């Protein structure tokens, strides 16, 4: 049963990111995986092996698209050519929802290929919400926006990050991809309590979770997706799940990628939390 309009896939279970080093294993061994998340941009090409592999995956698995370069938070208009390519892919994958980041990364036609932080201002929230609405109308698929890890804050910010996220999603009337690892990383980098974030996002709009590992440096934490999930992040995930109910969850592992089995094993640790929250829901 869907929890609400934005969380219609409570039974999606636990997915992992589809990554090149695992292609052969997945195609030959056909492991049981609830769903795969693909990085949309990796498949927005015109031909070749990427699309062939994707078609083979689509024959057997559920696939959800996750993007890194729509840049809803850019002050400039949406790139129509980009959206047209994205829509072709949406039609191919039949993704039930599409996610991208609450960030910006390009200006004046130049791309940084990064997920740059936004100033938490009303002007930024309005522009971002308008662009999410435009993208959803064009792509004809529900959209969820993901909170990013950040390493800098702006003097001009007028509100907290979670207030900004709430402002954007309420104005856009869209879902949230809540990345609990990103909340942890940003909380350490910006000295806030991550549970305040979890407790204040509109839980009814959370369509999906991301969990991941990160790297500690001397003075900050970098979101590297190259380690297992640490206990404090699992605790945040547990707290968030209590608020949202069962929700599709995905483990990200993008660098120094270990074997498929290791990544999948790490992802399935989320099952315990999902089952607990499911049991609590039934008991209630």
């Amino acid at each position, binding site marked *: 049963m869907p929890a609400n309009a934005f969380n219609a896939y409570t039974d999606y279970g636990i997915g992992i990111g589809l990554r090149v080093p695992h292609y052969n294993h997945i195609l030959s061994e056909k492991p049981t995986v609830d769903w795969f998340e693909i990085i949309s*941009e990796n498949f*927005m*090409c*015109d*031909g*070749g*092996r*990427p*699309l*062939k592999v994707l078609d083979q995956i689509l024959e057997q698995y559920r696939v959800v698209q996750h993007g890194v*370069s729509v840049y809803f938070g*850019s*002050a*400039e208009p949406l*790139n129509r050519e*980009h959206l047209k390519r994205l829509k072709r892919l949406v039609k191919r994958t039949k993704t039930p929802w599409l996610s991208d980041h609450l960030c*910006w990364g*390009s*200006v*004046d*036609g*130049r*791309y*940084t*290929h*990064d997920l*740059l932080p936004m*100033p938490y*201002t*009303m*002007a*930024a929230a*309005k*522009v971002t919400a308008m662009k999410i609405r435009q993208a959803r109308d064009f792509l004809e698929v529900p959209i969820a926006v993901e909170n990013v890890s950040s*390493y*800098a*804050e*702006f*003097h*001009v910010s*007028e509100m907290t990050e979670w207030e900004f996220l709430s402002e954007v999603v309420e104005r856009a009337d869209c879902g949230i991809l809540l990345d609990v690892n990103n909340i942890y990383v940003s909380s350490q*980098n*910006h*000295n806030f309590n991550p549970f305040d974030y979890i407790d204040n996002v509109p839980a009814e709009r959370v369509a999906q979770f991301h969990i991941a590992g990160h790297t500690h440096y001397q*003075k*900050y934490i*970098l979101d590297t997706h190259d380690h297992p999930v640490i206990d404090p992040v699992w605790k945040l995930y547990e707290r968030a799940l209590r608020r949202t109910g069962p929700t599709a969850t995905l483990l990200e592992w993008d660098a120094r990628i270990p074997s498929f089995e290791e990544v999948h094993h790490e992802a399935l640790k989320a099952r315990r939390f999902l089952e607990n929250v499911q049991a609590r829901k039934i008991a209630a």
Partner: protein
Amino acid sequence: MSKPGRSPPKRQSRREYLQLQRVMAGAVMRPLGRGEKMQSRWSDGQPMKKFAAGFIKPNDRLTSFERLEIYNRQYWFRLLDCFYDDYPGLRAVLGDRRFGRLAEAYLTQHPSSSFSLRNLGQYLLKFLEARPQLVEPHSQVGLDMARLEWAQIEAFDNEAKPPLTTDSLLEVDPARTRLQLQPHLTLLKLSYPVDDFLVQIKRAQRLRDEASNAMEAHTAHARRRLKGRLKPARVFLAVHRHKDTVYYKRLDEGAFCVLSAFRKNATISEACQQLGAVKSDPADLGGKIKSWFQSWASLGWLCRLDGK
């Protein structure tokens, strides 16, 4: 509630929001300074610390400069990594240090203008042609290698149109029919056998990946040895994709001329007339042309008939 006598903070306008992004992007994309650190001065000469403090908040561990520097360094590390991966051959020709300088100069002149890092090198050839000093004294080898490595990127994921069969070619009027080549196919006329060189470089790279860093010195030595063996030789090459794998196929000069003519929208007859300029045995020519077309059709290179 604001304190008495103190005006509320000024709200950011959309115009100011765009301006903030321009300022930050400019800082993030600016070349790194010594020791892969952010440059100490902004483009107008003011201290970078002062410039960064103008829009980035410090925290209890990092200054505004240091927080901005994280993004500046990540930008360059990401793009340089991608460039290194896309151009192992050019890197072998120039050596790591010169290649690094070339990469920084190119990416400063041509920052990414695509959502995909796949297109990062799309202007490299023109950039090098305008600045041969960046690849001297290996200018021709460097240019050949840059052509080959870009062709390889195009072959990997460009479109494949429905191919023509040999039978369908038999039914057409050669004087009126124009053939189109697959978008993933690139024809290259090279002055050095850089295709062989690149294959050997990749083999050495694979060995290194399978072994350990102890191989690093060995492969650098092997690279120099391979480069020393690279002698000028005219090579006609097709870089293409077949069954999802990228191949380099050496061509006869005649075959290269005919295929190049198709790229220029020639009819089959006009393309074959190009063979007049190529030295070959006329008695053998008919058989050769037939076998070329059979081979091209079997590889799926010919993909559209016009003017039938």
